């Protein structure tokens, strides 16, 4: 079988049955009154991993992070860090440090004072503190801002001070709550790579909470997609994108065309799905077990759909005819919305690999969409 389109470094302790998890959530439940924020959740994170908790607001991802930091205690279940049960250990005794969404920089202290705060708390000798602070300032490139107060810094500089402050203590685990949320787009992209470099350089375990899927995909080794206090899927960014395990994940991550139908025939290696609503038949690789008559879903990403004026050779499967309804030009790519006879809109994206095109597609053109049998994902959940 072909492998997924991943180009990552070879770091995959989660595939190694011998590897010991560094952080484990074991059947953790957290209730606030009647509201269940985290629901019987189990999760393992490995040493030196860059792990992202991804989900919409209110899905329980921040609560999970706060439980790891010690600001909340689980209602039931337990959290282990390096084999140690964290229950009852207050935040100030945990070997983890958190970067707050608001940065929570102490406004009455200078940049230096902020970075040195945790070190002073540990009773580190003065000259060592000075050396460490200088090292941290260099790491985040803020040497000339040491004497400034937080309100005299820009958003990006504040973010870096917050980062330096929680890295200074050399924690075992760094928790980041929406670390890039307050930055503008350009700065966010730069900072993503800085964070990744930093994590590699320091060899720390990072747990990042984010609602921004691009951010999670770019930075993380693995992503946990969360919904209503539960983990829907834990996988590498490529797996989450190319092989989502459920309609929720397929829909949540990226753009997708989702079809609902029933299995008509199962031939070895292939499955045919009838989609009566749009009068099309889909043939796809049998990546999941299913039987004839079973209702299933089929998800296909816009960039995996071909668009042409010419009628494809075989129009009986994986093909549909429709009118070009909307064109969204993004520069690097264009997303076409094709309206089928049923009224259904199919999104197809194409890369603008060349600068000039003869006879480009335009509004109201009649076009064919088609795709290969390995282009989409069969979903039974």
């Amino acid at each position, binding site marked *: 079988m072909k492998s997924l389109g991943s180009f990552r470094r070879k770091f995959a302790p989660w595939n190694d049955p011998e590897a010991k998890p560094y952080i484990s959530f074991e059947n953790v439940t957290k209730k606030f009154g009647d509201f269940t924020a985290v629901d019987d959740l189990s999760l393992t994170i490995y040493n030196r991993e860059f792990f992202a908790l991804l989900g919409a607001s209110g899905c329980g991802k921040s609560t999970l992070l706060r439980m790891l930091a010690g600001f909340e205690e689980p209602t039931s279940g337990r959290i282990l860090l390096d084999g140690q049960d964290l229950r009852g250990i207050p935040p*100030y005794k945990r070997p983890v*440090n958190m970067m*707050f969404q608001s940065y*929570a920089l*102490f*406004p*009455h202290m200078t940049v230096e004072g902020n970075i040195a705060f945790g070190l002073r*708390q540990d009773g580190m000798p003065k000259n060592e503190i000075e050396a460490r602070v200088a090292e941290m300032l260099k790491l985040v490139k803020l040497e000339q801002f040491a004497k400034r107060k937080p309100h005299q810094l820009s958003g990006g500089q504040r973010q870096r001070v917050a980062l330096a*402050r929680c890295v200074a203590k050399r924690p075992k685990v760094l928790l980041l709550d929406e670390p890039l949320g307050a930055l503008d787009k350009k700065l966010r992209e730069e900072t993503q790579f800085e964070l990744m470099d930093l994590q590699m350089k320091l060899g720390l375990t990072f747990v990042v909470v984010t609602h921004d899927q691009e951010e999670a995909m770019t930075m993380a080794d693995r992503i946990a997609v969360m919904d209503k206090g539960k983990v829907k899927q834990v996988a590498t960014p490529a797996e989450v994108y190319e092989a989502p395990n459920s309609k929720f994940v397929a829909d949540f991550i990226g753009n997708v065309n989702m079809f609902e139908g029933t299995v008509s025939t199962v031939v070895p290696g292939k499955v045919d799905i009838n989609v009566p609503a749009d009068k099309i038949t889909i043939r796809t690789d049998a990546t999941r077990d299913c039987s004839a008559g079973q209702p299933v879903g089929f998800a296909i990403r816009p960039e995996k759909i071909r668009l042409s004026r010419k009628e494809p050779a075989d129009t009986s499967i994986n093909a549909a005819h429709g009118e070009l309804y909307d064109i969204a030009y993004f520069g690097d790519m264009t997303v076409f919305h094709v309206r089928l006879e049923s009224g259904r809109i199919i999104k197809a994206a194409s890369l603008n690999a060349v600068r000039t095109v003869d006879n480009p597609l335009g509004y109201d053109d009649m076009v064919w969409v088609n795709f290969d049998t390995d282009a989409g994902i069969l979903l039974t959940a």
Partner: protein
Amino acid sequence: MQKLIASVVSRLVISVPYLWMLIFFLIPFIIVFKISLSQVTMAIPPYTPTIDIWAGWQGFINSISQFSWDNYVFLGSDPLYVKAYISSVIIAGISTFLTLLVGYPIAYGMARAPATVRSTLLMLVILPFWTSFLIRVYAWIGILKPEGLLNQFLIWANVIDTPLNILNTNTAVLIGIVYSYLPFLVLPIYSTLEKMDYSLVEAAEDLGCPPITAFWKITFPLSLPGVVAGCFLVFIPAVGEFVIPDLLGGSETLMIGKTLWNEFSANRDWPLSSAVAVVLLALLVVPIVLFQRSEAKAQESEK
């Protein structure tokens, strides 16, 4: 035309506080200051010279020439007044400190209370203002007197055998001031604490601070503006306080407000009591202005 009206209106609106200060502070102050430079006589009004606007310019000059600093010289030479000023400042200082000890935890508790009960707590702090200040101070007589509620309770609880003698001592004055001025201290501290971002405290704990250390290193320094404002609101009126030392204090209680009242009503010495008031104002205003200057400078340098 419309523009002109608008600018006149806006100037009027801006001038309201200045007019207020002029009419209700500056002019009365000038009158008091003028009286403080006069001499006491048996007349109505009981001082001389009086300025007779019908006497013309020469009359005015004549009146001015009779002004003297005698009253101020007298204040400085009589140890009674010096002592009264010092004692007032000490009593006000101690009671401000005690009010802070009582008020800060209250403000802190209110700011950390669930948002739903906060407005109720705020109401409870303001509620005593709905009863007359005088009645509330009188009520303390009933509580503190030898056969009062406090002594009855302590004897019943077997803490003491003989009643404590609290009423008509400086202790009673301190209790009265702390009680009366508590809201003035609680409210400004509450408002700074309530505005504070709680994640700062969490960040401090995350970086290794036990909660108490986090309080002293983060919460308290950040609430200082409220603490300073609250302390001034207690200290300034407490220095000149008259009702509380008069009702709860005894012969040992020497406060400038009481002295002023004695000079004014019992001795009918308006010029001297005016001088007492002017000196009191100067004593209070000078340090406040200096303090505000340094605050403004500190803020300026931060920018």
